[in-house]
């Protein structure tokens, strides 16, 4: 009995060129098996999916994508027949009506959210690919938002064709929900931009006129020209006050009606009074005019509000992009068991008592009871473990679990809000709702500040009355203008926008405004195990030979038994076989015993693949004694044939390469790591020691995880939670800030919706990078706030003392705002901490 050990990388000579996949950049374990030709040279790819995509791109004449892209493309999923059917559902009238809009000329249009865009070249690829589909009339991609606008002639092509074309070049897309706020955001953005542009024009031109008046010696400038310029300034400033500044007046009016002094009240007063006095002075021909101050004031305020709006829109867009694609259609039996005909029904229309068919690989849409079929279900939604649990007729299934092996007929009994999935979602929503509100805090502060400003202006006016003339007015206006909370208002949003920008370049989408501040304050980080610290898929770690056949022969047999199964074990065997270039043998009379294994006949001999007991039944002998020791947390699958043991496959969820390094870095940054998982103790302990985490908890249900976090918070600690599965949703919402790892695993849509930050790649180092970026952002925010306060402390006494003219006050305010913005801007480009 010999044993040989095969570890993951293959014993083939690797050339430099075959070390990494040309398309997705991941390590290429397949050597030179998959090839494509580009730019006159042969390129090597890691799998059939990447090869097909690369060849499609080159054949379509879009090779520029490879020349111009800035990084690796995401790994495309192989297109299987099931995908064609799934995409084809977008053509059904019920679904298409929800997303596509019919235009006057009969063509249809829709907005698509593109996934997997990592750089401008990807967006370009998407645009050209959609445009190349015959029958498409318009195709335009917005590089900033990552959305595509498509219009097509419904007689020549369809939405499914477009989506399929995108899939073939490795890009995923789904139609945007027209109800979401995208259209409203676009309208608002345009409105604000126009207001800003009008204010900008007015301000610039009025300054042109104001400059000669300031620079001229008394008597040098003819009074006629001065009057002309004042009138011109009036006509240029009037649109600014009437159009650009109307939101300030509206807000101030609303606040005053509610007997509150909001931030806009002093602003509205300053603008109205300054403009009114200037108009009067222009008509009467005497006194000072303040058109330039008014213009600058409005422009800078609008600029800061625009930046704030951009930050909020960014967050909203991130949330929309993460929202799960439109609900799938389900096959419902029209009259079970009399007929086996099914109709396609949207999930939302299902009711208790409906009998549905759940295919292998499909998600169970709601809770119910199995009527027919034997299968195993991936219930990671409740347990966090993707090892499927066997189920037979009469047993319950939970909505959200994935059917792994064979089709099931299920009668639903709890749909909609009653279903388990909905309940977990409710739990998470409730937890999210109890977070502290930073918004109301800043509102009250702003209210107090504004009242103070008004009081100071009044005091100044009174102080200067005895001096006579215009002085009281000038100085009061100067006080109002100089204390404009511009720098204060800009201090935080600019830093958050810049930091959010930097994080999105790292592949982290921030969907909640408070996330970055919370991330900077974090003291502890809680990791989930499966799918976070480890890859979500099983991989073959070792093939221990128990008989005389070679590893490749055993693998070929095992694969023969598992052909066509969606079981994670089958997938891991298939992946290993592909890497070793092993082709499966042909198997007959395949029969599956859920929870036990698979039995089949290969070349006339009976084989069994499964648990030790199951396989032992056909081997007829006890296990060989010298079978090598097991590692902790491994899944063991035995292969035996009639009369002989053949092999044991050791499968493990491999640790992510970046896990240990990330834990180390976070600890160095002062964040204490923890590991809390629903898996068994020995597996958890193995991972914890491999990664360097001392505090680990195993066999934790979702409620236990949330309790662990709450206990830490009760000690005054701030917790960052990193997870991926649906059962993490309540914890993700309870933590101070959460990151969901979402590199393509389908079951984590809920987690993405409840996490504050979503990580679109699998490099855990990005978490440490994000923490560093958040710390820097917090530093910048504090610097900005300190500057804004210091500036006010200096400038207000100066204005009250009458040293500052209104135009100087406006200038000083604008310079301080610029400083704040510039300080924040350097956040967006610093890459010192990126690994």
């Amino acid at each position, binding site marked *: 009995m010999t044993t040989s050990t095969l570890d993951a990388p293959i014993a083939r000579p690797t050339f430099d060129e075959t070390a990494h996949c040309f398309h997705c950049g991941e390590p290429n374990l397949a050597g030179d098996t998959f*090839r494509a*030709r580009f730019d006159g040279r*042969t390129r090597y790819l890691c799998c059939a999916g990447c090869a097909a995509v690369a060849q499609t791109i080159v054949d379509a004449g879009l090779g520029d994508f490879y020349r111009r892209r800035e990084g690796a493309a995401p790994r495309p999923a192989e297109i299987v027949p099931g995908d064609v059917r799934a995409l084809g559902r977008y053509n059904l009238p019920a679904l298409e009506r929800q997303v596509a809009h019919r235009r006057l000329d009969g063509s249809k249009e829709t907005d698509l959210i593109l996934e997997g865009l990592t750089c401008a070249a990807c967006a370009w690829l998407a645009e050209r690919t959609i445009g190349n589909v015959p029958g498409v009339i318009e195709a335009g991609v917005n590089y900033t938002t990552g959305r595509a606008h498509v219009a097509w002639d419904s007689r020549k092509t369809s939405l499914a064709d477009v989506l399929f074309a995108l899939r073939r070049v490795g890009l995923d897309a789904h139609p945007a929900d027209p109800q979401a706020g995208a259209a409203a955001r676009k309208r608002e953005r345009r409105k604000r931009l126009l207001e800003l542009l009008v204010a900008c024009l007015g301000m610039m031109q009025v300054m042109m006129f104001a400059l000669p008046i300031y620079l001229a010696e008394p008597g040098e400038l003819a009074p006629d020209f001065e009057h002309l310029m004042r009138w011109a300034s009036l006509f240029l400033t009037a649109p600014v006050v009437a159009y650009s500044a109307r939101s300030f007046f509206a807000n101030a009016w609303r606040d005053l009606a509610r007997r509150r002094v909001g931030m806009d009240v002093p602003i509205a007063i300053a603008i109205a009074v300054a403009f009114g006095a200037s108009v009067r002075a222009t008509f009467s021909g005497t006194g000072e005019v303040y058109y330039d101050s008014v213009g600058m004031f409005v422009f800078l305020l609008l600029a800061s509000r625009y930046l704030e709006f951009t930050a909020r829109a960014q967050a909203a867009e991130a949330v929309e992009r993460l929202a799960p694609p439109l609900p799938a259609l389900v096959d419902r039996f029209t009259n079970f068991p009399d007929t086996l005909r099914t109709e396609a029904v949207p999930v939302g229309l299902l009711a208790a008592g409906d009998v549905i068919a759940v295919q292998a690989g499909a998600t169970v849409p709601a809770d119910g009871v199995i009527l027919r079929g034997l299968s195993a279900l991936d219930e990671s939604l409740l347990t966090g473990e993707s090892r499927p649990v066997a189920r037979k007729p009469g047993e319950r299934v939970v909505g959200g679990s994935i059917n792994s092996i064979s089709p099931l007929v299920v009668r639903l009994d709890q749909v909609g809000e009653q279903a388990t999935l909905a309940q977990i979602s409710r739990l998470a929503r409730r937890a999210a709702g109890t977070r502290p509100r930073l918004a109301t805090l800043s509102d009250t502060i702003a209210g107090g500040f504004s009242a103070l400003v008004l009081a100071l202006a009044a005091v100044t006016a009174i102080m200067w009355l005895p001096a006579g003339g215009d002085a009281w007015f000038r100085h009061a206006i100067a006080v109002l203008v100089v204390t404009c909370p511009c720098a204060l208002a800009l201090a935080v949003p600019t830093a958050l926008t810049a930091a959010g920008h930097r994080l999105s370049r790292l592949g982290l989408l921030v969907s909640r405004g408070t996330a970055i501040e919370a991330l900077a304050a974090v003291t502890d980080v809680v990791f989930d195990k499966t799918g976070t610290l480890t890859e979500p898929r099983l991989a073959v770690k070792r093939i221990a030979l128990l008989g005389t056949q070679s590893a490749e022969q055993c693998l070929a047999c095992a694969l023969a038994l598992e052909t066509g199964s969606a079981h994670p074990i089958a997938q891991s065997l298939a992946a290993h076989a592909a890497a070793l270039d092993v082709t499966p043998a042909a198997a007959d009379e395949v029969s599956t015993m859920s929870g036990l294994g698979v039995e089949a006949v290969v070349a006339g001999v009976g084989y069994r693949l499964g648990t030790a007991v199951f396989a032992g039944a056909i081997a007829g002998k006890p296990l060989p004694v010298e079978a090598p020791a097991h590692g902790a947390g491994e899944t063991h699958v035995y292969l035996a044939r009639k009369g002989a043991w053949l092999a044991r496959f050791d499968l493990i969820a491999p640790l992510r390469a970046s896990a240990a390094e990330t834990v180390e870095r976070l600890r160095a940054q002062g964040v204490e790591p923890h590991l809390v998982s629903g898996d068994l103790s020995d597996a958890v302990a193995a991972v914890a020691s491999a990664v360097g985490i001392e505090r680990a908890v195993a066999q934790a249900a979702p409620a236990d995880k949330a309790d662990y976090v709450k206990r830490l918070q009760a000690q005054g600690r701030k917790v960052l939670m990193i997870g991926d599965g649906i059962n993490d949703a309540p914890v993700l919402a309870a933590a101070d800030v959460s990151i969901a790892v979402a590199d393509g695993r389908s079951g984590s849509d809920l987690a993405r919706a409840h996490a504050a930050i979503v990580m679109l790649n699998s490099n855990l180092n990005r978490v440490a990078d994000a923490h560093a970026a958040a710390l820097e952002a917090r530093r910048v925010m504090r610097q900005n706030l300190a500057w804004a306060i210091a500036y006010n402390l200096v400038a207000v006494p100066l204005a009250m003392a009458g040293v500052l003219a209104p135009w100087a006050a406006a200038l000083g305010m604008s310079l301080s705002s610029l400083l704040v913005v510039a300080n924040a801007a350097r956040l967006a480009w610093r890459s010192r901490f990126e690994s």
Partner: protein
Amino acid sequence: MEALYLLIPLSVAAVFAIGWVLWRAVESGQFDDLEGPGHRILMDDDAPPAEEPAGPRTIV
């Protein structure tokens, strides 16, 4: 210097004209995507791509 009597009102009119042009530009969506056109210019090639010879391809 009398020219100023003409130039100053003219400049006001010019600013209004510019304002109108900008309004048209914003409403027609030219400011919606500020990055895309830059990238598009660089990426779209006028010259037709050279035909890639259908060399050996192995897709398992």
